Structure formats: structure tokens, C-alpha cells
């Protein structure tokens, strides 16, 4: 081994604490990058493969009654490749657990094979007849249902037994949510069953009639044109909604997650690598300064600038290569864990953990570039060192008074050790900036983490406790007369009940449009509390509409704008409605209207399709026996399943807290160790003067505390900036991250940062304790 490389190895060994500290930062950055990227690439490629295998549909249409006979006419529409009709509706699944409410969505399929959205068979057979059904894998697993088992479903108030013939996955339900309000899958409470079309038609009376169509297109890019033709032709069949693949709930949720993780995986590792690069550059630059004499000797011996520059840059590069390799390996292992975690929510049967050479190459390149640039930048002064000058002792820096010294009255009262502290702080501006930045980054990242944690916690309590105050949300299987609410009230005897009309419509403002559920409720509603972003209550207007904040963003609408609602209901015209308010809504994306105004402008009749109920009783068993009940959501159950989901968030937040603490710890630790090494002569002189080790350590502690204090000040706006970034990234159709930064968040962030920074400094005390002051004073070796 070349002796310069040997020197490098021993240099690493000598400064192993710092080396390991920076290594951890690089490993962490690379681990996050590789884990997230590999997991997301696993998800994305497997999803595409799954879509290809199963011929995932391009357009999803909900319609009142579409006759089978009309199919041939639609097949001929330009750009339509394939079209398939289905009967889709939600029914109660008969659970043997008392008071448990479980729903399944029946999706009819042909007896042999579908053209579009083919079933991917995990077990059993695809061919079904009569009462044989295929059950969706997540639901089967969650409820322990096996092939050959019998399950009971309640269709139109009557119970029917079905035999499980197969367990399958569908591309349409890779991520299964009852609706947009649900936020997450509840595989034990809601599932999908695929049943024979003929059988379901005979049980529901929908002979040769479909209420759902799924199409594939020859050219997906021409969706708009084809959509217009379809819309026109479907008008007479009672078009309810038409959604392109991009907005299909399962697909949209998948890409929501994929894009979110992509953004985070691009941002967080860069923060870590920047931090590592900055520490490296500072450390190497200080090493070069310290090694001025060594560099002079090497040059005197005939070593070229390039080989000396290489020597110091290799230190940084070795961190990049070692850290990169460990980070990539750990990240790849972690990607397996993440992919398995994703399997809990996104079910893709072909999903597998793979090694992606491009991700690895990118990671190695990224870390090598960061570390090499840091190394070269830090070591650049090597080029300027003249060997003759390096042999002479360095000229002492020109001394000058610091600003605070001009305030004589104050300065006189400052103790000697504090004078040393202030002078050092103001003379070492780069170190000042660095340490304060370390504290600021830790404050900012932990603030963001505690904010996320608090926000996730609040998201549900705010949505289901303050925004929506009902205990149950009942969905009827079809629109019924308003008068039926009285019957329901008599049966349930609730504390409060009110009607709702909820239907999907395409809402547009200019060129931007979005398919969302428009909800009609009483103006005097007791189940909703609308508030704007300032926290002021907003009343439901008599005319016009309130829209959720994420919808306002999606279609770029403001108060006073006239939005267009495309009306699919036969005989009804499109409506132009004024936005009367934009309301805060953490979950879901909706338009809210006075139910009477909605009937007048959109739905036309005095019909309702659901009810909100407030009651302390469990009404699920009462509802099980009723006809026309499509589904029931209990707020309590939603919150319970959210708590399970929160476990994952807690784990994620835990990791984030560790990572952010690590960053601050490493920055403070590295800078303090560097400072102690450089100032060994100064500390030795203080020892000779009679200072104790503790007193010397307290000087360092005081310096770092003052420098960190500034970081605590600008850490807050930095954290707010990160949180605003998160808010922008995570505004979606399903949820809005809009929680305010609370005093509790700030106190937690400060407390956590203080713990990390104190720990980093206490560890450096060992260095002071072990510093050989006599050796430092007489040392002449390099």
C-alpha cells in the first residue's frame, strides 16, 4: 500500500469518532434514498406489469341503467377499443361477530374471463357458475376466508349463501377504499367479491342492464374527445360519473403515494448529503490548515499538488464509498421492509423486491460526487501552500477587537472565560455559521416531524369530531323519497337524523376540472361545522356552494367565482354555481350545497340518497335488516382503524426523529472535536495557567451554546419552510395537511434539539479529559 494511503488510513483511525459520525449521515441519506427509491420502483414497475397482465381499463363509467343491447353501438365509437358492462353495488356481508358491520362490493364478471380488468387468480379457479364467487385476496386474508368456504351476503334485504371458488386480485382494487372519505383500506371491514353476472342480474332484477361500464381506449391521449362523445351518448342512460384511469380511486391513491415518496426521496437524502458534504469540506479544510507543515514537507519531497489533493480528497471519497455501500445495502434491505409494508395497503400480486442497478449507480454517483466535491473544495488550499512558507511558522492573525468590546461598560463586567468565549465566537465566523446551522436543521427537521405527528393525530379528530359530527353515515343503495327519512327515524330512534344527497359530478373552473362528490345537506345542519382558514364559522348559503380547500386549489377557484357542474342526470342542464366560501377540510374533496338548492339546480327531485345519524346506540344490526341500505360508516370504527394506521405513522415519525437528531448531533460533535484538536495548544496554555479540565470544557460548552442559540432562532422559520413544502406536496384529493404549527410542536422540537446537542457535547468531554497537554505543548511531529 502506498505510504500516503497508509497515512490516510491512520488519519481515519485517529479521527474515527468524526469519521463514523459523518459516515452515519451519509449512510442515513443513502439508506433513505435507496429504500424509498427501490420500494417505489418496485411499486411502480410491478403496478405497470399488473396493469398490463390484467388489461387495466382506461375509463370508468357509473350509469343508472345501461341496456346490454346498447353495447354494440358503443363498441363502434372511434377510439373505443373494448367495453364491458358490470353490475356494481355494495351489500352487507353477514358477520358472525355481534354488531360487526362489514360491507362488500359485488362486481359482476363473466363466467369465464373478462376482457378488461381481468382477475389475477391467486388461488382456486376463475370459472364460476351459479352461487360460486371469487373473493378479493386482501378481504379473504383479513377475514380468514378459504376456498370452499361459504359466505352470506344480504342482497335487497335477503340473505344468500355463496361458495368461494377462487381468491383473486383486481387492478381496479389494488388499493381498496370504500370511498374518498375513508383515507385507508380496512380489509376486514370492506372487501370485493366477483360474482356471476347472470346470477346477480336475477337476484337484483337487473336483467340485461348494467350500472357500470369499463372501457379501454386505443389512444389514451384522446380521452377528452372520446369522453365528449360518450357523455352525449350516455345521457339517455342516466350517466352519473365518468372517470379516466388517472382519477380512478385505487390508481390515483397509488400514484399519490408514489409521487409523494418520490418527492421526499429526492429531498431528504439531499439534505443529509449536503450536511455530510458541508461537514467534510469544513473538516478537510481545517485538516489542511493543521497539516500545512506536512503539506510543505510532501511538496519538498517532490509530491505533486495533484497527489496531495488526492490524498485529502480520498478521505472524503472513502466516506462516500464506504457510507454509500453500507447505505445502499441497508437501503435495499429496508426497501424489502417498505415494500412489504406497502403490501398491507396496496395489493399488487406481482410485487417483488428487486435490486435496481440504476438506483444503485445513481446512489453511488450521487454520494461520490457530493463527497468528492466536498473533498476538493475543502482541500483546495493545498494548491496555494508554498513549501518554503509552509516550513516557517504561520504568521499570527491580525488581532482586532470584536464589536461588543466597544461597549466598555458591558465588556468590563464580562468574566475572563466569557471574554474568551465571545472572542472565539466572533473570530470563527464559519464555525459560528456551521454550529448554528446544525442546531437550526435539527430544530427545523424535528419541528416538521412533531408537526406531522400532531397533524396525523388531529386529522381524524378534527375531521370526524369538529368538521363532521355524525356518529353514522348511511348510504342508501338508490335515491329514495325524502319522506323515507321519517321511517328511518322511527326505526332507529336516534338523537338526531338529517338527510343528505351525495352524488359525483364533474366540477370545472375554466379549463381545470375535477370529478368530486357534491353533498347536499340542510342549511341548519348539525352534522357539519364549516370553518375557513382563519377559523371563522362559515354558514351554508341558501344558494351557491362551499368548496373544500383542496378543490379550490385543484380547479384554481376563489370566492365569487362561478364554477360549472356538468350534469349527467337525464333532462337536467349543466349548472353554473357561485363559490360562496372555501372551507377547511382535512379529509376528502367536496362541494357542499343547501339540499333544496341542489335539488333545484342539479338533482331535480325531492329525493335523498343517505342520512347522517347521531346516536349513542349501535344501529348496525338494525340497519342490516333494512332494504335499500347500501352502506354504513361508523365514525368510531373509522377512528379505530385510523389508530391502527397510526402505528405505522408512529414508526415513520420515530425514524424521522432519530434522523433529525442524528444530523444535529453529528454537526455539533464534529465541529467541537475539530475545535478541540485545533486548539490543543491554547487549552494547554490555559491548563498551565491553572484552568481545570472542567473549566476548559465549560468554555467550549458556552461557545457552542451561544452559537446554537442563533440556530434555535432561525430554525423555526426554516422548519416552517419545510412544513410549507410538505403542505404543498401533500395536498391531494384525499387529505390536506393544513394543521397549524402549535406551541407544543415548537417546545418538543426545542427540547429534542437541546437533548441531542447536549449529548453531542458531553461525548466530546472525553476528548478534553484525554488530551495530553504536555505533549501538545512540545509536539513537533505532524
Amino acid at each position, binding site marked *: 500500500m502506498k505510504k*500516503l494511503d497508509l*497515512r490516510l488510513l491512520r488519519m481515519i483511525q485517529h479521527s474515527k469518532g468524526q469519521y463514523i459520525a459523518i459516515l452515519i449521515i451519509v449512510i442515513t441519506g443513502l439508506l433513505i434514498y435507496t429504500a424509498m427509491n427501490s420500494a417505489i420502483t418496485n411499486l411502480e414497475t410491478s403496478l405497470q406489469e399488473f396493469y398490463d397482465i390484467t388489461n387495466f381499463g382506461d375509463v370508468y363509467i357509473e350509469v343508472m341503467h345501461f341496456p346490454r343491447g346498447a353495447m354494440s353501438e358503443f363498441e363502434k365509437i372511434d377510439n373505443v377499443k373494448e367495453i364491458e358492462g358490470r353490475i356494481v353495488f355494495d351489500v352487507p356481508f353477514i358477520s358472525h361477530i355481534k354488531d360487526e358491520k362489514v360491507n362488500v362490493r359485488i362486481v359482476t364478471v363473466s363466467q369465464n374471463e373478462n376482457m378488461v380488468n381481468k382477475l389475477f387468480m391467486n388461488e382456486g379457479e376463475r370459472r364460476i357458475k351459479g352461487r360460486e364467487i371469487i373473493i378479493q385476496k386482501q378481504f379473504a386474508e383479513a377475514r380468514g376466508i378459504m376456498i370452499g368456504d361459504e359466505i352470506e351476503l344480504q342482497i335487497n334485504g335477503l340473505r344468500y349463501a355463496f361458495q368461494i371458488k377462487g381468491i383473486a386480485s383486481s387492478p381496479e382494487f389494488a388499493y381498496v377504499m370504500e370511498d374518498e372519505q375513508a383515507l385507508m383500506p380496512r380489509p376486514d371491514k370492506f372487501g370485493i367479491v366477483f360474482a356471476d353476472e347472470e346470477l346477480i342480474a336475477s337476484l337484483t332484477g337487473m336483467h340485461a342492464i348494467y350500472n357500470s361500464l369499463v372501457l379501454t381506449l386505443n389512444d389514451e391521449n384522446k380521452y377528452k374527445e372520446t369522453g365528449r362523445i360518450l357523455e352525449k351518448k350516455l345521457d339517455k342512460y342516466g350517466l352519473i360519473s365518468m372517470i379516466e384511469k388517472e382519477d380512478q380511486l385505487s390508481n390515483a391513491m397509488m400514484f399519490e403515494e408514489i409521487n409523494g415518496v418520490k418527492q421526499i426521496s429526492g429531498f431528504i437524502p439531499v439534505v443529509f448529503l449536503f450536511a455530510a458534504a458541508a461537514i467534510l469540506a469544513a473538516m478537510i479544510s481545517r485538516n489542511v490548515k493543521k497539516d500545512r*507543515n506536512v503539506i510543505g514537507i510532501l*511538496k519538498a*519531497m*517532490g*509530491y505533486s499538488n495533484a497527489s496531495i489533493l488526492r490524498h485529502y480528497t480520498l478521505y472524503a471519497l472513502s466516506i462516500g464509498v464506504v457510507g454509500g455501500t453500507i447505505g445502499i445495502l441497508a437501503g435495499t434491505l429496508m426497501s424489502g421492509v417498505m415494500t412489504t409494508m406497502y403490501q398491507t395497503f396496496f395489493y399488487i400480486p406481482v410485487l417483488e423486491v428487486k435490486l435496481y442497478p440504476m438506483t444503485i449507480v445513481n446512489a453511488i454517483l450521487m454520494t461520490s460526487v457530493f463527497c468528492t466535491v466536498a473533498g476538493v473544495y475543502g482541500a483546495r488550499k493545498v494548491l496555494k501552500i508554498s513549501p*518554503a512558507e509552509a*516550513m516557517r511558522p504561520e504568521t499570527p492573525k491580525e488581532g482586532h477587537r470584536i464589536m461588543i468590546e466597544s461597549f466598555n461598560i458591558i465588556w468590563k463586567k464580562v468574566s475572563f472565560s466569557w471574554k474568551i468565549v465571545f472572542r472565539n465566537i466572533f473570530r470563527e465566523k464559519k464555525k459560528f455559521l456551521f454550529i448554528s446551522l446544525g442546531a437550526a436543521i435539527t430544530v427545523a427537521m424535528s419541528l416538521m416531524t412533531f408537526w406531522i405527528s400532531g397533524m396525523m393525530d388531529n386529522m381524524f379528530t378534527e375531521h370526524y369530531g369538529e368538521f363532521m359530527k355524525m356518529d353514522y353515515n348511511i348510504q342508501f343503495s338508490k335515491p329514495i323519497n325524502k319522506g323515507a327519512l321519517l321511517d328511518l327515524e322511527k326505526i332507529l330512534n336516534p338523537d338526531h337524523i338529517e338527510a343528505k344527497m351525495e352524488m359525483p359530478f364533474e366540477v370545472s373552473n375554466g379549463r381545470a376540472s375535477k370529478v368530486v362528490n357534491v353533498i347536499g345537506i340542510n342549511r341548519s345542519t348539525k352534522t357539519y361545522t364549516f370553518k375557513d382558514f382563519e377559523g371563522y364559522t362559515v354558514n351554508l348559503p341558501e344558494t351557491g356552494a362551499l368548496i373544500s380547500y383542496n378543490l379550490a386549489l385543484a380547479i384554481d377557484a376563489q370566492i365569487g367565482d362561478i364554477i360549472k357542474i356538468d350534469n349527467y342526470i337525464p333532462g337536467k342542464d349543466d349548472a353554473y354555481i357561485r363559490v360562496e366560501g372555501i372551507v377547511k377540510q382535512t379529509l376528502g374533496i367536496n362541494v357542499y350545497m343547501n339540499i333544496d338548492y341542489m335539488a333545484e339546480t342539479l338533482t331535480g327531485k325531492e329525493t335523498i340518497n343517505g342520512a347522517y345519524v347521531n346516536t349513542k346506540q349501535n344501529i348496525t344490526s338494525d340497519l342490516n335488516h333494512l332494504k335499500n341500505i347500501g352502506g354504513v360508516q361508523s365514525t368510531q370504527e373509522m377512528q379505530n382503524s385510523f389508530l391502527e394506521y397510526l402505528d405505522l405513522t408512529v414508526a415513520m415519525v420515530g425514524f424521522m426523529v432519530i434522523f433529525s437528531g442524528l444530523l444535529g448531533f453529528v454537526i455539533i460533535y464534529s465541529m467541537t472535536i475539530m475545535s478541540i484538536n485545533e486548539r490543543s495548544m491554547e487549552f494547554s496554555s490555559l491548563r498551565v495557567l491553572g484552568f481545570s479540565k472542567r473549566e476548559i470544557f465549560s468554555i467550549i460548552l458556552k461557545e457552542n451554546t451561544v452559537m446554537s442559540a442563533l440556530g434555535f432562532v432561525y430554525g423555526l422559520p426554516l422548519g416552517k419552510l419545510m412544513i410549507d413544502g410538505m403542505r404543498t406536496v401533500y395536498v391531494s384529493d384525499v387529505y390536506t395537511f393544513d394543521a397549524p404549527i402549535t406551541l407544543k410542536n415548537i417546545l418538543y422540537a426545542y427540547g429534542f434539539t437541546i437533548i441531542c446537542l447536549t449529548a453531542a457535547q458531553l461525548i466530546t468531554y472525553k476528548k478534553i479529559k484525554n488530551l495530553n497537554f504536555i505533549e501538545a505543548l512540545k509536539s513537533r511531529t505532524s
Partner: protein
Amino acid sequence: MKNILYKVENLSKHYIMGEVVVKALRDINFEIYEGEFVVVLGPSGSGKSTLLNIIGGMDTPTSGRVFFKDKEITDYDERKLTEYRRKDVGFIFQFYNLMGNLTARENVELAVEICDDTLDIDEVIQAVDLQSRANHFPSQLSGGEQQRVAIARAASKNPEVLLCDEPTGALDFETGISILKILKKINREFKRTVIIITHNTPIAQMGDRVLKMRSGQIMEYYENNHPIDPERIAW
């Protein structure tokens, strides 16, 4: 007929320190011949280290020329100067300047591995009588031992000339003498030119040629026809 190793012509070096111009070398001229043991004598601040740095290719003059074997080194660019320091010159410093995290032997190897035509490391280590201490780190060696490592490091490259800047300055009398003996041995046995700069007048007695300096000028330059052995020097 002796061959000229160094020819120095009208060499001057000025430093600007704030508003003051320090004239470290003032238009000096001299020649050094191959195989000689030259002592540059002068008090602190006389310009002897500056002179050594310039003829060693570590520094550049303000004016004047230095020829090394007929080649003008003052005309060299950075790359050529590096090459010159690598192949033709070996430096020895007052404070040894060893690499603290390399052993004695590794310090010698550090110099050898960038040169082509080098001496056998074991032979050089034996010549400086460091066989038993070769695997020790500098912190485990005495000052004299460290200086012997520095000599071995400079000599092992097999350079044309050894440039020694106050090699005994940090050592006690006896250790200093032992170092001088080694340098003389290298001069005699390995036929290398040795240039020593020192403020210690008695050392001048062992030089084949003595160059006395003061205030950046040569005060005296003479050939010593009867150089004495280091053992006979006393200070």
C-alpha cells in the same frame, strides 16, 4: 577538475510585509561543486534559509538565476520544480518534520515510492543505525533518532544533493555530533553533495567549503583545505 553542481547568479529575494520590503537576499553569486560538504554559516535572519529554499526549488527568487547542473531551475514551472525536488534534492529540517502517523521505516518509504532510482531502504536504515527502531512511530523516538529518520528519508531517494536546514539546531551536543557524522558518512560513502545551513560556527570546520552570510549578503566564501571530522568539533 570539479563539476559545478550549483551556479547562483545575482540572486535576490524581497518580501513585502505590510508596508516594509524585507530584502532577504541581495544580489548574491557563488558556485557549489559536486561531492562537496558545504556549510552555510550565518546568524538568524541572514537569509540562509531563503537561499536553501530557492536552490532547493521550494521558493522562487525576486531576481537572479540558479543553475543546477547547467539547467536553470529558476526558469522551471511548478511541474518541473516538483520533478526536481523529487529526483535531485533531499531535504532535512531542524524539527525533523516526520509524519506522526507513519513509522520510521514508513516515513522512509514515503519518500522512496515516488522516485525511480532509489537506494536500498534497509541499507540506508542501517547506515543511520536505526534497524532496531525502524518500526517505531516518531512519538516513540528521541530527537536524535527522529533526525536520523529524516536523514534516511532524504538520502534514500538517492538525490544529487542533501539540503540540511539547521539539522542539529534542536539537538543536544552529543546527538548533534552523531547527526553530523552520519551526514559526513553519506557525503563520503554515497558520494552525495551535502549543504548544511547553521548558525553554529564550529560546524564550519568540517565543511569543504564555507559560505558566511549576513543581512542577505555573502560576507565570506572560502574553500577549507583541512576539514576536520565531526568528532573533533566542540561547541
